[in-house]
């Protein structure tokens, strides 16, 4: 009888099996995440690859667990499966479409990889380090040390800026404007050397200084120093350090306007 078969789905044995499966999956995912955290701390050079594997493995683990639960434990009758799938489809279509959007966007992001854990990104109007990503959302730690959760669907819809794309080095711009007449060549040279003296700057990559005329009512020259930081986590420290050096060597502080991008 179909009713009996459906009742069997909710048997004690099945409940125990499902609980065991749930616990095993949770445990596996947690152990892998902690192991990845540990290894990433020990090998910071490879932290992007190591931490980036966590969401993929989590997705695979939960997909596997779902398949085992449905086809290995519950084994529902075909007609029930179709009925449940149809009901679920309707429910998804109506009630939880936002969640579905996020999950689908999460799956796309996991495999397309526009970002990975450890990247410095700008998404949803926030800029910070990606500290976590799952099927629903990405989490950023901003420079204010706040955690911002951005739904995957939103991150997918909007332009997403990734400053380092899985690399530990990141191009940091330090912009400043000098008002009044200025010896451009000298300021360029000093700004470049000031950046080279910063212990946060990765010297194996080139340092550029871009100069633009920004004269409006008053003569103004905009300088943009571009240099790579040794580790994305030190981005702001480098920008501050380079600017401090520039103000010490290039011009009087009140003629400078700083803008770190």
């Amino acid at each position, binding site marked *: 009888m179909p009713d009996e078969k459906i009742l069997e789905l909710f048997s004690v044995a099945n409940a125990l099996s499902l609980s065991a499966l749930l616990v095993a999956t949770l445990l596996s995912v947690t152990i892998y995440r902690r192991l990845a955290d540990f290894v990433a701390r020990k090998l*910071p050079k490879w932290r992007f690859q190591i931490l980036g594997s966590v969401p993929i493995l989590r997705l695979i683990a939960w997909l596997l667990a779902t398949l085992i639960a449905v086809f290995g434990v519950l084994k529902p009758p075909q007609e029930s499966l179709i009925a449940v799938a149809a009901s679920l489809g309707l429910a998804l279509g109506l009630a939880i479409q936002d969640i579905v959007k996020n999950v689908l966007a999460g799956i796309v992001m996991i495999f397309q990889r526009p970002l990975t854990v450890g990247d410095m990104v700008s998404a949803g109007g926030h800029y910070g380090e990606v500290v976590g990503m799952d099927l629903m959302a990405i989490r950023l730690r901003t420079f204010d040390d706040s955690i911002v959760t951005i739904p995957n669907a939103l991150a997918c819809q909007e332009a997403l800026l990734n400053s380092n794309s899985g690399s530990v080095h990141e191009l940091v711009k330090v912009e400043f404007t000098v008002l009044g007449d200025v010896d451009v060549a000298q300021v360029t040279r000093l700004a470049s050397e000031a950046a080279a003296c910063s212990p946060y700057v990765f*010297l*194996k990559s080139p340092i550029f200084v871009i100069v633009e005329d920004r004269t409006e009512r008053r003569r103004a020259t905009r300088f943009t120093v571009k240099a790579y930081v040794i*580790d994305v986590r030190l981005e702001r420290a480098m920008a501050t350090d380079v600017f401090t050096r520039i103000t010490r*060597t290039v011009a009087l502080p009140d003629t400078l306007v700083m803008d770190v991008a």
Partner: protein
Amino acid sequence: MPSRKSRHFNALWSRVRGLVGAEVTPVSEDVALEAAALPSYEELQTGCAELPAQYADLFLRERSGPEVSIKLQQSNLKTLDDALLAWLGGMPTTLALIGPSGSGLGSTLAAFATDVESRGLRATTVVPQARVDSAAALIAQLVDALSLPPAIASLDELVDELVRDQQRVVLIEDAQRWFVRRMGVRAALATLVELILRTRRRCLWVVSAGSLAWSRLDALGGLSSVMSEVIECETPDADELRAIVLTRHSLSGLELHVAGGPDKPPLLPPTPEYEKALAEYFSKLHTLCGGHPTTAIYYWRMSVEASESDQALMLTRCPRLVLGDIGSIATLPRLILAELSVHGGLVIDYVADIFPVSTDEARQYLERLRRSGLVERDDDGEYTLNPLVGPHVYPALSRAHLLY
């Protein structure tokens, strides 16, 4: 520092090895040493009163040991000789000799200088006396080191003098001790590069620098672009290290026995067990000191004891260095460690300028590092990375991207 967990783990591991019957070679019984508790060379000297006095003298840090042939050093000397011949043949030649601490940069340069002089040529070794942060400061030091008229103050005058003067080989030892990461250093580096380019027909320039510093100097001043060849030196391998230590030991005229473990007789030469124990010891010693001969000699001194026989000494065990987690040190002190590793030593004012922090803060950071045994301070107030822990600190800093 050895954590309680790691001590328990080691004890447990030993017990497991004992239970499964694994043979425990006596020299593998490690003695864990904390970096902060390492005795100085002088303390080690006075603390080994039971050793014959002449033996302790053989292992003084300052004492140069007997000549031991290092394969790579011979090959590097051959390269230098070939370059010398090419230069004498009229080819503009400039060489860089780079390598980690303990790779014999100084001794290779000294051997080459002797070789040059034996050919009747003039060789001048330039040892940086102070940091330079301008072209003028560099020129002043070069003029002094090359014994040129002190009135020379500009690059053009220096070039003219060197071109007018007789041919000479100029050996710059530890160039990184000139250039520190502060404003003005690029001008000084550019001056050196131009000087080399304009005089390389008349002077054979050989510039030696630490490997880590070289990549920085190259990035800052493009030094490698003017080099005909960059010769890379390496520290001795385990066999060469064994030859260095045992050749020095042999001067004492004493035999060397290896402790056989509790209630066991010592291992004597020339048995296979003795050879195996020695090979295991030197393999461990090589890992411990990163191939640095002076550091190896330090740890060797810790490993030998007086034996019952007047004619022999006992090799007991290879120490094991236990360092705290370098990764857990705050960012700024770790950056200071990295800069010390690259620059080869810095005084407080330079550390304050590089980071930039106040001199008081710089002193506090440096002293904290010194108390942890990672850094040492000399009589002139210069802080350097403790060479005894260097081989363990460099990889940690490199993994954190602070050394590249």
